[in-house]
């Protein structure tokens, strides 16, 4: 599922995009194979399969399918749409608000943190009506009280 009202790609871009996609996927796989898995997983001398077996196997399969995808896309370029970059500011704002809210929960527990979270995310998505904003904050506060009281 692609997002937004993307634009149709031109001929050269149709070939450039699969190469870029392949380069990103393949290089991330190489990093996993050479850095993440060896540094994060010890070899075990126990019986049975190595703990690295499945992580390595999955990465190799991904690399294989990345190569296959590149060949298919170069031979038969698909009519894909370029992802729309409009509205990414909103995504960044919401992410930032959520991160700050999560940090507040970590520092000041659920009640205060949750209230800050809904206040910031509401501001981030463009809520400017003071009355609506206050209602949202108060209802969230009541809900969080209920969660705390229920012991969830």
């Amino acid at each position, binding site marked *: *599922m*692609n*997002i*937004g*009202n993307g634009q149709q790609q031109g001929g050269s871009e149709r070939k450039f995009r699969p190469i870029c*996609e392949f380069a990103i*996927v393949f290089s991330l796989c190489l990093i*996993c194979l050479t850095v*993440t*898995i060896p*540094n*994060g*997983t*010890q070899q*075990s001398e*126990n019986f*049975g*399969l190595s*703990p*690295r077996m*499945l*992580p390595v196997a*999955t990465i190799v*399969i*991904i690399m294989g*399918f*990345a190569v*296959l*995808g590149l060949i*298919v896309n170069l031979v038969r370029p*698909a009519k*894909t749409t370029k*992802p*729309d970059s*409009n*509205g*990414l*500011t*909103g*995504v960044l704002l*919401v*992410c930032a608000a*959520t991160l700050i809210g*999560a*940090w507040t*929960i*970590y520092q000041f527990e659920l009640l205060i943190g949750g209230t800050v*979270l*809904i206040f910031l*995310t509401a501001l981030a*998505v*463009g*809520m400017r009506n003071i009355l*609506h904003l206050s209602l*949202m904050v108060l209802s*969230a506060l009541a809900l*969080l009280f209920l969660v705390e009281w*229920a*012991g*969830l």
Partner: protein
Amino acid sequence: MDTFLQGATDALQLSSITAVIAGIFLGYAVGVLPGLSRPAALSVAVPITYAMSPIAAIAFLVGVTKASAAGGATGAILLNTPGEPSSAATTFDGHPLAKKGEATRALKVALYASVFGDLSATLVLILLAAPLASFALKMGPVEMVSVMIFALTFIAALSGSSLTRGVISGVFGLFLATVGLDPESATPRMTFGMIELFDGIPLIAATVGMLAFTEMLIQTQTMFAERKTGIVTARFADETNKLLSRSDILRVFPVTLRATGIGIGAGILPGLGPTIGAFLSYAINKRIAKPGDCYGKGDLKGVAATEAADNAVLPASLIPLFAIGLPGSVSAAILVSAFMLHGVQPGPLVFEQHPRLIYGIYVSMIVASLVMLVVGRLGLTLFARATRLPLIVIIPYVILFCVVGTYLQRDTIFPVLAMLALGGIGFIMQRYGYSVITFLIGFVVGPLFELSLRQALIVTNHSVSQVTQHPIAMVFLAASVIAVIFFVKRKA
């Protein structure tokens, strides 16, 4: 018969029925809200039952479990944010239906299919517990690996327009599922000294992050893009038809029946659980779709396929629990603790030691299904109104539930950070056509697949030829090969 009537009388007492109703309300709330999981709600509910009679306690917990399974569909259909991981597959057709202006019809099918699946599985539990449990005992590691391989072949069927991207997403899910302690040697894998990662990436963080949080980011982008360009498209078409016709019911019924069977199978086999059951059911029904069916684009059949299977799992998972003392799902395992709290040891002797209680539980389960139907039907109109709320209000609340729900899993910030990170990854994946659904199938199936594979290798002494001595495994492997051939032919 006397014992049955005594049990039924216990189940129909006011205290038991009140407990069921309370459980249904709690379960619905847990099911609707993303992040609050069924096992978490059950864990909290078990101590509450301490002062209740055994029958009222179990009835309450059964109510919580059943309603949370049914309630999970509401968020999936209306907001594309499933309340439960097992309702993730309901988003495939449920949300497109809501967009087409058929939210009420989708919610109705979800409710009726849920109740049908649940009620049928309960009747199977009552009538066939012993013979089905003996079948479950025949499912060793080799058989489980073959079932998992069968489940993984469906990644191809659900991969969307690009097979390679779908498979890459699924295998990426398998890869992330390997984070944590190695199941055989307990060696930490890719944990980098973080104790929180020893149990792996939390499933609830993965499902909430990949589905609910990602969806909110997508909706935010769409909303901001519309503000910038000034072109506003309606989120949902007007609801012109809210009724289910006779032809709709006749069309959906065979799928519901099939899905119930698949759900019962997934419940009986320990470890599979409702999420795999729902995905399997959707993929199988999609694969055998008739001309004119439009799975993935908003078909009532798709909603019935996942919801009936999801709700059939719990009653079926009680079959091995009652017959041989082996819980078939996480929820059933938590129910064991409730049984023990009230002095009942589940297992083959339970029918001899507590026949009145068991019959009482059976009747309570049927009562719970009927109460669920009434509560769900009454709440349906209210739920459907959620589509009228503006995004500017929905997004902050859903994000709050995502964060609070994942935070409550462990009372630490780690699952929240994992959820946010996976939400970001999910957003990028969706943006470039990588399916988050196949990712989740790989992630859910991964741990059980690896464990079964390792056990199978030990059982067969690393000899592939020994598989021929396992006829059930051979059947599933043959089915996997046929499924792959069928899919490749269809794509060609």
